[in-house]
């Protein structure tokens, strides 16, 4: 026999029930009302960047799902309905993050688009370039190659470098060993680092493909070769990237070092 709490039927009178309701109402009134929301202006917004003839992200549902996963898993607020902005729109400087994805060739950026992105980067904004057309081995698609080419025009003085597992982006929330998305791709991410901050992160893993989920609740794209485990790790990477945007190099602080070194030693994925 299992020990446990035994619930006995209780006979409620109407007066007692009304008293309970009244007491609860009074109790609620005695508490200060929470400051639920100053809007979501300061929340993480996986803003979709459009250039040239682009009309949307490679995976329509990916930004919203990214925000949802972030809110479910962390304390960070996020916009479930990500905004969309064109590179030549003055609004490109209204938030510190841009998500640029695609699987087709990128049209050369216009002068206005380059100027807009330069203003965004000058303010310290961060961009994720997600190659939705990446091959299973992480081969760049025309979008990946084109995006790198155009970013080089925006930031001509910077060259992408590889971010290995030691980079803070792999431990901003989850401890990750490598980068993964819909495809496994290369273990590292590439990034243009300016002022100590990875300002443009290149993913050749189709991160959005792993996040995309249809209205029916089913994942839109299969994840290869690792299946659901790899999808989970891809979601974790997306969460980490969002946390990197919001917390910068917070997990590089010395106070975290001994804890994270111990965990790394214990954690075997």
């Amino acid at each position, binding site marked *: 026999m299992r020990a446990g709490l035994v619930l006995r039927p209780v006979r409620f009178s109407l007066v007692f029930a009304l008293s309970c309701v009244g007491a609860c109402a009074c109790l609620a009134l005695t508490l200060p009302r929470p400051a639920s*929301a100053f809007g979501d202006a300061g929340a993480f917004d996986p803003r979709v960047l459009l250039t040239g003839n682009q009309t949307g992200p490679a995976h329509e549902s990916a930004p919203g799902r990214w925000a949802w996963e972030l809110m479910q898993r962390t304390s960070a607020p996020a916009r479930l309905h990500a905004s969309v902005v064109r590179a030549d729109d003055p609004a490109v400087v209204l938030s510190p993050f841009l998500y640029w994805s695609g699987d087709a060739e990128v049209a050369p950026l216009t002068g206005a688009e380059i100027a807009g992105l330069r203003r965004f980067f000058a*303010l310290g904004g961060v961009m994720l370039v997600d190659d939705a057309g990446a091959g299973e081995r992480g081969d760049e698609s025309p979008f990946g190659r084109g995006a790198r080419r155009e970013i080089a025009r925006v930031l001509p003085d910077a060259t992408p470098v590889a971010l290995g597992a030691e980079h803070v982006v792999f431990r901003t929330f*989850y401890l990750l060993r490598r980068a993964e998305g819909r495809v496994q791709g290369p273990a590292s991410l590439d990034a243009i680092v300016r002022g100590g901050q990875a300002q443009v992160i290149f993913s050749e893993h189709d991160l959005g493909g792993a996040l995309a989920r249809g209205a029916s609740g089913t994942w839109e794209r299969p994840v290869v070769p690792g299946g659901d485990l790899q999808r989970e790790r891809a979601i974790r990477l997306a969460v980490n990237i969002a946390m990197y945007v*919001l917390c910068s190099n917070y997990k590089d602080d010395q106070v975290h070092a001994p804890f994270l070194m111990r965990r790394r030693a214990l954690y075997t994925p």
Partner: protein
Amino acid sequence: MDHATRLGPSGDLSPAVAALACGLALASFGMLLVEMRRRERGGALIAGTGLFAVVALLAAVLRPARISARESVVGARVVVLADTSRSMALPDAAGRDRRRDVRDEAVAKLQAAARDARLVLLGFGEGPPTPLPEPGPAAGGQRSDLGAALRALAASPEERPAAVVVVSDGRLDDPPEDASDVNLRALGDALRVPISAIATTREAPADASVRRVSAAGAAVAHVPLPVRVEVGCDGGLQCDEVLVTARELREDGPPMELTRGVAHVRDGKAALDLTITLERAGSRIVEIAIAHQPGDKIPENDRRLVTFDVARERVRVLHVAGRPTNDVRALRRWIKGDASVDVVAFFILRTPSDEVHATQNELALIPFPVDELFQEHLPSFDAIVLQDFDAQPYGLEKYLENIRRYVRRGGGLVMVGGENSFVAGGYAGTPLADVLPVELDGKPGATSADTSPFVPEWTPAGATSPLLAPLRDVVGDELPQMPGANVLGDVRPGGVALWRHPTRTTRSGGRMPVLAIGEEGDGRTVALAVDGTWELEFSELGAHTAGRGHGALWDGLLGWLMRDPRFEPAQLGVVGGCTAGQPPRIRVRLPQAGADEARSIVLDVSRLDKPAPPVHVEAARKADATSVDVGLPALEAGGYTARLRVGEGATTRYDFACEEGGDEWADSRPDPARLRALARVTGGAFAFAADAGSLPLPKPTRVSAERHVTPLAPPWSWTAAAAVLLGVHWIARRRSGLA
């Protein structure tokens, strides 16, 4: 004035010519005497006529005249430099007379004895000498700088004195105790007159004192500072081991002991090395005191109040954020971008309701060390930033009292808005609310946030506040639209609103503050009721200003918290130091006033080391004045803090100490040997006060006036007489057988 008459040569002859003529006359007569050895007879006749002829010839050259004049005797100008420093208020060894009284008696004796000298009585202390005040209960100056007084005399266009007489106890700042003869002689060389000295005191009183406190280098917050304490014990006092304590005077409570040690006295003196650590920047008063020694006749110098101007090498900030947002990101990036700021950050990245789908070991999360931070390490931080942080879930509530104490002891606190801040964070009615610059409404049903977007307005104080000047330089009057605000109450007494809500009002009917600052005890606090300052970076305004507005805002806020002089409304200082019993003057240096700037200055002075009635002084500022001296009533010895408010703006604080004797009483021993050496090397004389009347002084000078020269006879008569007598002498020679 006397009349005098005498004979002299004609006025057109110089003394040299007259002397030459006299010499030639004597030589001529001498040669005549030699020549007389060849005479045959009549020696007396030759000599007599020769003498008359030479005299007549000399008279023809000199043409004697009667000189009459009115003459006077002028006494030598002697400058008496009497020591007016505060050490002259010390008693003599017997504990009866004060040195000042002995000095006055010595001066009186000197005046009585020097009838033929013109005595000019001056006092020396700090800078050029000044006319000695009438004998009375003068408090005395904080320095005894004889060197400055002598140099000022030498540079004076007035008549150079024939001698200088110094009347002092010999305990001088300049020349110092270990001055060599060369250095002492150099003092006299400036004037090139003998310097005599009268010593007022022979023996040291029975006294144990803190003679000197010196620090090795500048005081830096949180950094141990070596301090050397020199203890003296003289006048027959028996002290072998003397307890020395160092305590910091604080406004929020009794003095806090920093360290203590025992000084081992040998040959009447001891040096003790202590190490103190001051946690807060700004002017800080440290009391260095020795235990009272039985028989000590001057207990006032048993403690020194030392003002340390504590600088900051780096600012240590504790940044706690309730959740990661764009506002947290912006502040984090600004803090990390400033190399002078050391930040310890804790962000709440996960709440208990979050589904992380991972084991603990797969997460890069560490426990929030709330106990360690807010119990153990709190004093080591210069400022705490609580950003969108709810105290309750993380057990911070029990440490809010610690934070209140931390602020009152000089810490800085910023509460930044968000859905977990202020009323929503459960801070209303807590000890932390007592130190915020705004009131929080903790009543049932209180609204914690207004979610309607708005653009904050500058208050008049905000528009002129130095701490927001950098932001205004970047954005002017423009501010970005905020997505909402935490609901705050009125500004508490002493607080100042810098931004306000354009429409929302408090219960009192005033406009709701959005950004407010305040002082609480030793510390300062900032309430920022929005979480949208990141839009100073990422917005159209941010794009126009290259995002510099956010950094400019936080430069000012954190700089003001840390009392950075750039962000203070004024700079304060005590003119000439503060001596107990003498009304001090506080000099207020202000930035250039605008046309419509407030003119009123309010200064509140309160005692640090013990309860005492505060002093409240108001003054007015002239339109173009950048410096105002505010007089205070005489204060007792102790530590004080002065708070200044200009108009309705923020206050600034300045700590200062008033001492009974200060440096002048620290070493009560007289030093007649130094005075004796000074007199010796400059050619002067030395005497103790009892023998002041016997001090030798320069002789007076005779001065002639209304001089009249009258010839005794016309020049031709002298020439004719000389010719006749020479002729007679020639005849006498011929008759005596001389050629």
